[in-house]
């Protein structure tokens, strides 16, 4: 288990200036770049969407994993681990295309090897182990590689005596690896147990969406569960529930605010405050 660890050099392609345009429209009008928010319909200057949050209504759009890392960690402190791990196709799974081909194409398109980045760095001067899901890689689904990297993240937190901060955004287990994906739930949770016994905190940050086998394994077991405003968090997806109970779900069901009301998360942190919130929590739990 720890013998094939390679620590890549600090990755240079994280820059704080990068703005993604995944969820709302961006266009050039006159001399400025403008962007319209899908949630409130208002148009703002693109640079006003700091950390992908709408300056008008506060809607949180997805932030790329690389941007999360550059936002949360002290500059230059990040070093990725286990980036060399790649998925195999143990079942020979074929849907619209073979899983092996889908993996190769997704790797090429996203520039990452699988649906998570894990490593270490400092947050406000404190050493932490950090993981961030890459939702654009097959919906952040957890297969063998994601499970392995999370297990190593928790184990390293235990070995090094450092807290673990893990930002989840995932549709759940990766269907294409069948029951092997399912077992990643048990594997990651068992590794979390090691971190707990080592006396280190686990701060679970729940992004939009966190569902299925990721929600139902380690993600709701944080010593502190922090959710982003409006994030969808739940075991079953809303469509499955609607089909099962044959009724329309109430407004706001399975959203972060609903989970806070029902006692499932400790707090909701708007994105611009998350870094300070994490630093404060680590201050209380750190040595």
């Amino acid at each position, binding site marked *: 288990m720890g013998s094939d660890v390679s620590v890549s050099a600090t990755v240079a392609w994280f820059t704080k200036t990068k703005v993604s345009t995944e969820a709302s429209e961006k266009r050039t009008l006159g001399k400025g770049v403008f962007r319209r928010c899908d949630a409130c319909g208002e148009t703002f200057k693109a640079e006003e969407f700091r950390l992908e949050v709408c300056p008008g209504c506060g809607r949180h759009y997805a932030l790329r994993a690389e941007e999360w890392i550059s936002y949360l960690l002290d500059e230059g402190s990040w070093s990725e681990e286990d980036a060399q791990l790649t998925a195999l196709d143990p079942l020979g*799974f074929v849907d619209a295309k073979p899983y092996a081909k889908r993996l190769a194409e997704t790797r090429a398109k996203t520039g990452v090897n699988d649906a998570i980045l894990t490593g270490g760095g400092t947050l406000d001067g404190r050493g932490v182990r950090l993981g961030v899901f890459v939702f654009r890689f097959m919906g952040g689904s957890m297969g063998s590689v994601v499970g392995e990297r999370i297990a190593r993240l928790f184990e390293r937190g235990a070995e090094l005596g450092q807290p673990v901060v893990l930002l989840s955004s995932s549709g759940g287990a990766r269907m294409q690896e069948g029951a092997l994906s399912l077992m990643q739930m048990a594997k990651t949770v068992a590794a979390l147990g090691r971190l707990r016994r080592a006396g280190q905190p686990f701060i679970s940050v729940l992004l939009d969406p966190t569902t299925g086998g990721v929600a139902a*394994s380690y993600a709701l077991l944080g010593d502190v569960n922090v959710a982003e405003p409006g994030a969808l968090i739940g*075991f079953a997806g809303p469509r499955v529930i609607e089909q099962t109970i044959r009724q329309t779900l109430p407004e706001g069901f399975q959203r972060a605010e609903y989970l806070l009301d029902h006692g499932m998360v400790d707090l909701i942190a708007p994105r611009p405050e998350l870094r300070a919130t994490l630093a404060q929590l680590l201050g209380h739990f750190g040595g």
Partner: protein
Amino acid sequence: MAHLDFEKPLVELERRIRDLEEASDGLGGFEPQIRELKGRAQALQRDLYEGLSVWQKVLLSRHPDRPYFLDYLGNVFEDFVELHGDRAFGDDPAVVAGFARFDGRSVAVIGHQKGRSTKEKVRRNFGMAHPEGYRKAMRVMELAERFGRPVFTFVDTPGAYPGLEAEERGQSEAIGRSLLVMSELRVPIVATVIGEGGSGGALALGVADRVLMLQYSTYSVITPEGCASILWRDGARGPEAAEQLKLLAMHARANGIVDEVVEEPVGGAHRDIPAASALLAEALRRNLAMADALDPDARLDARYAKFRAMGRHAG
């Protein structure tokens, strides 16, 4: 007795044998015919069950006459006392938990329970647990821990219930917490998938020192129907999805997900429940002895190492 389509010719032959036996009862005269029919039934049975498709095996795992947890409990264990409730919200009939005796020794027994009659099916929610079911299970596991009793779990569920109230009461947390409790329990745990091993709701009772699967049970990340509706937007293509998912006991064994496949009587456990129970009891006895042979620290390390090694990756 219910039967599946592919079982029909066999069931029909067996009915004719029974009729002839009844007709000849005390009088004799039909022995050659009966002998001939029995020979044909045996050959048919052999051909039928050797050539089953993946989907037919999936159907066997859900067979309406398949023995459920309480059937095995009655045949394999004695002196059962059921313990109800999670001490927080309610009692979930989709999970049965309590203490019983196995070879005279007090043990905890916990399992998903499906219903046989329509009324019972609804009461048991088709074996789909709510959070309070998993929380009851954890409560009984922790009780077993304090009193040094081994834990036997029996997995048989299409999945944890995907409903509004289940979400409201923390289905995700309950399943995750159960995984954590089982990974840290110091007493021996033997888990057996006896029918449907459906996703996280199944695994929530499936973290153990020894994980067994009955021959015609399944273990899957998603139901074939659910997989088909995602892949092809057509749940009716479940049989195709079942081929992809490699969800049979033999696949789980080959992928290192279970430790042992427990043989069933020819045609499946429902065709001879006492024999199926005897085969299960023997496997439980042997596997409990293996888990028992280790001291608690070594047992926990071995359990950790087993689940830690699950998965396939390069690099």
